[in-house]
């Protein structure tokens, strides 16, 4: 029984002297510090592991320019969906011969919008947002902002779409 008594850790609720208190503080800080280091050493690789595809898609979305081969052959009055970085985008060849490119992500809740050839508008099926097909302005419905416009250069063999900085 004597041995058992000796092996019990000191009761932390009864500090006997000021030295004990400072020693306990020191130990506490040490233990907390060590725990923090371990949590960091385990947490960092786990975070980077889980975040890996996010990093890859952030790199992909940093794209400034996309070349669309043969897009110059797009018929007048029609539109074409392409990927700008990681998001969908619209290339429209208007009846008046003008070319417009803009993001196809609705500024309301992020649905993908659609070019309505008949009405010459861009519409969003999710909540009825409507955008101007020439400027990307939000005309009616809930969208708070216009669609993001891109620069368009039409060449002999392709169309180059560039982010407006």
């Amino acid at each position, binding site marked *: 029984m004597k041995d058992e008594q000796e092996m019990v850790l000191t009761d932390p609720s009864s500090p006997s002297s000021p030295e004990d208190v400072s020693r306990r503080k020191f130990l506490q800080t040490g233990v907390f510090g060590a725990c923090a280091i371990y949590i960091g050493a385990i947490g960092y690789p786990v975070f980077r592991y889980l975040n*890996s595809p996010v990093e890859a898609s952030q790199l992909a979305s940093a794209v400034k320019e996309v070349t669309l081969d043969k897009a110059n052959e797009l018929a007048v009055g029609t539109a074409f969906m392409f990927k700008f970085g990681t998001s969908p985008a619209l290339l429209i060849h208007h009846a008046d011969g003008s070319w417009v490119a803009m993001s196809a992500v609705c500024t309301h809740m992020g649905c993908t919008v659609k070019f309505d050839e008949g009405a010459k508008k861009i519409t969003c099926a999710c909540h009825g947002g409507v955008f101007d097909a020439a400027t990307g302005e939000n005309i009616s419905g809930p969208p708070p902002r216009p669609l993001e416009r891109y620069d368009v250069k039409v060449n002999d063999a392709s169309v180059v779409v560039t982010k407006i900085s």
Partner: protein
Amino acid sequence: MKLETLKADLVERLGLEEAIKLAGKKTVPVHKHTFWYFWGGISLFSFLIQVVTGILLMVYYRPGPEAYESVRQITYQIQFGWLIRSVHNWSANFFLFSVFVHMFSVFLMKAYRRPREVGWYSGIALLLLGLTFGFSGYLLPMDELSFFATKVGMEIPNAIPIIGPPIANLLRGGLEVNEFTVQRFFALHVVILPLLYMPLLGLHLWMVQKHGNAAPPSEEAKEPSQRKTMPFFPNFVAQDLGVWLIVLNLISLLAALFPWQLGPQADPLAAAPEGIHPEWYFMSQFAMLKLIGRVIPGLAGEAAAMTLFTLGLVLWAMIPVFDKDKTNTKRSRQVLYFGIFVILVLLSTTFMGFVI
């Protein structure tokens, strides 16, 4: 103190008084073999590492035809994927190793005797499930080694007369190891085995809490006043946590310094690579099959070896029936010799497996 009130409320609402009383009263025997008490905890801790790293691997792993490609991505493309995979592999080996040490120390301390038989039986079941975890997980990367390991492993159920071949075919999902096999083994590895393992582990741990650690016969022989103990909480728990920390560091070090490799993709038309052998925990069976095969060639030898192994395992599992009580009789000495014999056979055949 608000925190104190919250604590008291929780204790009352959850009915924790009993558990706290039990933990407060529980002691752990202190003697020269106390070290072996840590191995159950080490097994538990490495199992927990398996659960965590296994869930992390599942984030990117794709069973089926893309299995190899997804493990290649985890190993070479995903940040720190190699580390998570390496920890999962090293910890799996560590887990089985500590389970074996735990089992043999329990055997030699005669901790399977009344009233701890359920602990022993559930432990044997946990070991078998653990080995099945190892076997099913080994296929998942679908590289050359895992392909042949599973191909050979499936010959074991296949050798059972009449019912063997249909069982092997069902397990494989075909006549050969293919993408359906990976899909099945994945379901086994991450759903079916954990579903069986968790409740059994709960029972096993409850039995340890209920009956406490058994003292070896040399301690039992002492007068109660001569025996030393330490409180389970906080002393033993603190030491246990210290050991877990050492294990964590060791596994991390091994995983970082010796990352687990990924072999070439499994090719059903390629010949088996030279010197191919199973993991160490199946090495003893492998060597015995080879050895007995030299004496009795052909299928008869294989059947003889497997019968011998199965009988040995049944006998091993049934030990509490034979050696029941705390008295040091002739029987208990026989069991001790049997245990030493089994350990020597396993060690020597495992060693032989690596050299023959």
